[in-house]
């Protein structure tokens, strides 16, 4: 029933003209300010992600200096949860019940967001643009108050499938995946993408995070006669897989998931010369890529980094990510106009039509609807040339 009302509301929103809307507020919004809450791991095992929270904070500071959104300043309240789910629950409750934010935004981590998923939806407080790639956040029917942002694992896997079907329709595919929900999420997207052609997969092997190496799995894949390799592994194992495949002389077309496409922490330890030809995907402009040296958006971003986040590392793609996702939520709030209710925030976020922050790769846009809560759904493939990633081909996905 609630879903129905929600859907009707979304349709109505498409027809209504926001200019005539009256001022309407939920907790956390007023004529002067909009309060947004966030949790980030500033400490603990995942503190490398903490820079995302800092770059978002800096973005809102810039926005406020420029006059805010529709005359309202953004108050961004961000707490450290050390990547610990119980702490996230505590902090999310603090944000909702004590700080009374309009919504939470970019809470980071799959387990952390799982911990507050039910709570946010029960409280009907938007859990906007969660910072995780799991596919389960795109579930408007059962969780109408939660939305992801980045391309999820399944859409990324489908992009590789599209490329395989186009360039190598008779491929024999071998898959290596990490045996947990992250690995299975990718695998599901891969299977769904292949559909009736699932028989192209000649071998699927898995490994446990606790395994010391994936050497024997690579040997098995080579023995299966596969000539395409889809590598669903986290950084350490990705480096091992690339190295082992090269060392035993197995030369398949190698697709590596986006999770592990870091040159510094994966390809360098694997050996740059051994990584030549590996294919991965991207959706955001990497500031270290020489292709963007004269890009206007990256130029603006550098200005922003210099002025508002001087301690931030400009080589860290997470800072481009934080900037881009903050720009997206700013756009949603602009669209909300004077109707700053929680329902309208969800409604506007679910009616983006081709808008894009310019720091995304050219051609990648954000489109959402009442039954599509996945904002960025396309990626562009890239191939490693021994020095850096080179983008190629068209943007894949919706």
């Amino acid at each position, binding site marked *: 029933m609630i879903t129905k009302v929600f859907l009707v509301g979304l349709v109505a929103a498409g027809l209504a003209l926001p200019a005539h809307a009256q001022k309407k507020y939920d907790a956390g919004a007023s004529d002067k300010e909009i309060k947004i809450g966030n949790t980030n791991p500033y400490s603990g095992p995942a503190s490398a992600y903490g820079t995302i929270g800092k770059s978002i904070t800096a973005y809102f500071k810039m926005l406020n200096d420029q006059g805010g959104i529709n005359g309202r300043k953004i108050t961004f309240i961000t707490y450290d949860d050390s*990547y610990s789910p119980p702490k996230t*629950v*505590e902090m999310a*409750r603090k944000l909702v019940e004590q700080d009374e934010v309009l919504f939470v935004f970019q809470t980071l981590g799959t387990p952390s967001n*799982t911990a507050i998923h039910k709570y946010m939806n029960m409280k009907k407080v938007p859990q906007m643009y969660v910072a995780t790639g799991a596919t389960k956040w795109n579930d408007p029917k059962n969780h109408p108050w939660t939305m992801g942002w980045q391309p999820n694992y399944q859409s990324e896997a489908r992009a590789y499938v599209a490329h395989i079907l186009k360039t190598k329709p008779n491929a024999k595919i071998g898959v290596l995946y990490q045996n947990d929900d992250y690995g299975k999420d990718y695998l599901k997207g891969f299977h769904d993408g292949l559909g009736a052609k699932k028989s192209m997969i000649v071998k699927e092997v898995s490994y446990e995070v606790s395994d010391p190496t994936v050497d024997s799995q690579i040997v098995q894949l080579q023995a299966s006669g596969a000539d395409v390799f889809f590598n669903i592994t986290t950084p350490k194992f990705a480096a091992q897989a690339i190295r082992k495949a090269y060392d035993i002389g197995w030369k398949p077309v190698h697709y590596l998931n986006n999770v592990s496409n870091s040159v510094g922490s994966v390809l360098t330890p694997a050996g740059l010369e051994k990584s030549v030809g590996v294919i991965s995907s991207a959706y955001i402009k990497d500031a270290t890529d020489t292709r963007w040296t004269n890009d206007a958006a990256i130029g603006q971003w550098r200005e922003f980094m210099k002025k508002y986040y001087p301690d931030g590392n400009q080589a860290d793609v997470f800072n481009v990510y934080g900037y881009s996702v903050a720009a997206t939520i700013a756009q949603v709030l602009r669209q909300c106009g004077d109707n700053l209710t929680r329902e309208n925030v969800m409604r506007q976020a679910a009616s983006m039509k081709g808008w894009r922050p310019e720091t995304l790769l050219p051609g990648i846009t954000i489109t959402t609807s009442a039954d599509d809560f996945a904002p960025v759904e396309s990626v562009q493939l890239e191939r490693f040339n021994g020095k850096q990633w080179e983008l190629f081909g068209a943007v894949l996905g919706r």
Partner: protein
Amino acid sequence: MTKRNFLVLLAVLVIACALPFLVSNYRTFQLTLVLVYAIALLGLNILTGYSGQISLGHGAFYALGAYVTAILMDKAGVPYWATVPAAGAVCLVAGFLFGLPALRLEGLYLALATFALGVSMPQLLKYHHLEKWTGGVQGIVIAKPEAPAFFPWVGLPLNSDRWLYFFTLAVALLMFALAWNLLRGRVGRALVAIRDQHIAAEAMGVNGALYKSAAFGVSAMYTGVAGALGAIAVQFVAPDSFNIFLSIVLLVGIVVGGLASISGALYGALFIQFVPNIADEISKAAPWAIFGVFMIGFVYLMPTGVAGAIRLLLAKRRSP
């Protein structure tokens, strides 16, 4: 118990009962967590404070208790209150069994053995043959218990947060009363004797191995009960919730609160619940550095913990 102590206890109880009606639901939830940590710290204090064995792995028993509750509630539909004694029982047995071989190790070696337990726990919970029950890395989301119907009937405005607080308070009181009875009698004296001079203790007829294992078991049971209550309050368990840091924070809690002191558990719990939040508000860049400053400050100013400092203060006032 002196009349004075009794009055203090009564006052604390009255405040504890009134608090949830004076603060927001969110604060009530935080206070519930304080009680949960207090029970866990009490457990660890029995082991470390009283019998002198250092454990760096009590987070594992906390996790075990939490998972027993979550699995029973989620898979078997057991009501939440019934899972708490079950979690305690499982941890008692697990603690006793772990204690038997581990207690042949002394001092730092025991600390290392328990450290191994604490480090491996999150990975064991992710083990894929157990996934059917544990939910793997995804963890288990459990339903929040509702306040029973008779409360509004009595005229108390009780939402589920307040109810959970009182439920936890009742369990905490029971656990504290048990510990008080246990530690101030024969068993407590035997444990302290083993800690201070185990050869002399054995000469007096104290069975060292048995007492040590029993202390380990009881200590694990307390921590398990705390884990169970924590899981019910947070409504979610996942391997990442119980990393080695939890074990270390528990150890910090008993040292700051006061070793070998029952009331110290409460002070320690307040410390580990609220100081990280204060540190985070002071600096986003280095919350743990601020936490460290607090910790050094406490240890330097109150070398016997908060409980010890209060005891000292009272003694000074009494003596002319």
